[in-house]
């Protein structure tokens, strides 16, 4: 009988297209945490998160905000002395959390990403005004006002499209997507 994969193995399996070394080669040196420009806003630093994945601490890993606060700047990746693609590992945990719907409601990142992908699947292009509601309502009144002001200025400068753009061969595009994700694709 095959043993059920551990959490660490599950995340490792999501890293198949990465050119980096496996997470298990982490030496816990902390170069990633020292390099990360967002580390101070994370519940757990990147170094700790990798340690927690390797220790199969599934609940604790999924409960923290670390991977959704990763901006994908790859500074940790290019500096890791163990050659782990750490930013790619953050993507792997993001995907895991989206598939298993484990994200806390107050996190904006997952809703933002899913809305973006839905927009593209339906039109072939991204469109900023559709994305705004995914994060604006998480703001307090002051932040909401500031963001609305920025958006208004962008509009006045002609920097936001009035109508959502779409590609020409949209039908082909949608059929193409259905060959990748056959169930629950766009109607």
């Amino acid at each position, binding site marked *: 009988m095959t043993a059920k994969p551990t959490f660490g193995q599950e995340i490792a399996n999501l890293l198949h297209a990465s050119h980096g070394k496996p997470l298990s080669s982490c030496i816990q040196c902390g170069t990633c945490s020292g390099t990360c420009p967002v580390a101070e806003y994370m519940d757990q630093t990147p170094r700790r998160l990798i340690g927690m994945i390797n220790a199969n601490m599934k609940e604790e890993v999924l409960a923290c905000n670390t991977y959704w606060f990763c901006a994908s700047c790859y500074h940790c990746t290019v500096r890791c002395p163990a050659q782990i693609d750490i930013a790619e590992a953050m993507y792997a945990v993001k995907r895991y959390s989206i598939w298993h719907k484990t994200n806390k409601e107050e996190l904006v990142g997952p809703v933002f990403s899913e809305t973006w992908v839905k927009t593209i699947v339906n039109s072939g292009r991204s469109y900023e005004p559709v*994305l705004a509601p995914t994060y604006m309502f998480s703001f307090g009144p002051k932040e909401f006002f500031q963001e609305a002001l920025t958006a208004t200025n962008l509009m006045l400068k002609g920097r936001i*499209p009035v109508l959502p753009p779409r590609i020409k061969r949209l039908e082909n595009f949608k059929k193409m*997507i259905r060959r*990748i994700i056959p169930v629950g694709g766009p109607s």
Partner: protein
Amino acid sequence: MKQYAFFPGCSLEKLAASYYVSSQESAKKLGVELRELEDWNCCGATTYFHVDQLLAHTLVARNLAIAEKAGLDLVASCSACYKNAYFTNQHIQEDPDLAEHINYALEEDNLQIKGTSKVYHLMEVLANEVGAEEIKSKVTHPLTGLKVAAYYGCQIVRPRKNGENVENPQFFESLISATGAEAVNFPDRLRCCGGSLIMTSRQAALDMVNKILQNALANGAEVIATACPLCQVNLECYQAQVNEEFGTNYALPVLYFTQLLGLAMGVPPKKVGLGKEFVSAMPFLSRYLQKEAR
């Protein structure tokens, strides 16, 4: 004239329209033709990869396949578009199984991909394929004395593509110097602007923008130059919010490197898209512009 398939990406249609026009104008002056990719789709930035990797690579591959069909190498002007196109292309070359899956999907749009086109960032083409010397010879309105902070950001240099120097790159500075401007010392030039965190983790991103602006100013920059629409928006359009949050008083113009190149080669300000900024660069640029063009 050397031709490339140009992938502008969604931002360049409106949000970064000045990047689009200034790219086209500068390239033309340098004998490079940027032919916009026919019926391109969004590259997904970082978000496709949060949801599904195979779907993400397929959507990026469609653009690459259209370039391949035209027999041209692909040039992207947004750093995220560039990074996505570069690595999807590489994975397709190296992983026949992935290529087979993707090609099965691409059949629906009568496309096929082998991974034979090369992928470049526009800045790479201008700095390496054209070169600073050639640019210098085309400069008619040198920006002598203008102090520019050359801001690389992240994905134009990272992850490492082919053994290049990711800790101390110089290609951006070489372009700025070619215009006659001075590339100031700028330790934060490789530090991330926060990218889409500006929407999803606002407080963290505003802090990141604040640090970069502070660093540029402390080193005497009059203008920040960028090579990515998201960097431009975060550093410029969010300055007012940074000022509000941190009690700062920034009014630092943030331009695309192609706008500076274009101006130095005598392209009129309107044609490099000047006028769409939140923070006007005119106080620093007017001394270089001919009276009739101001």
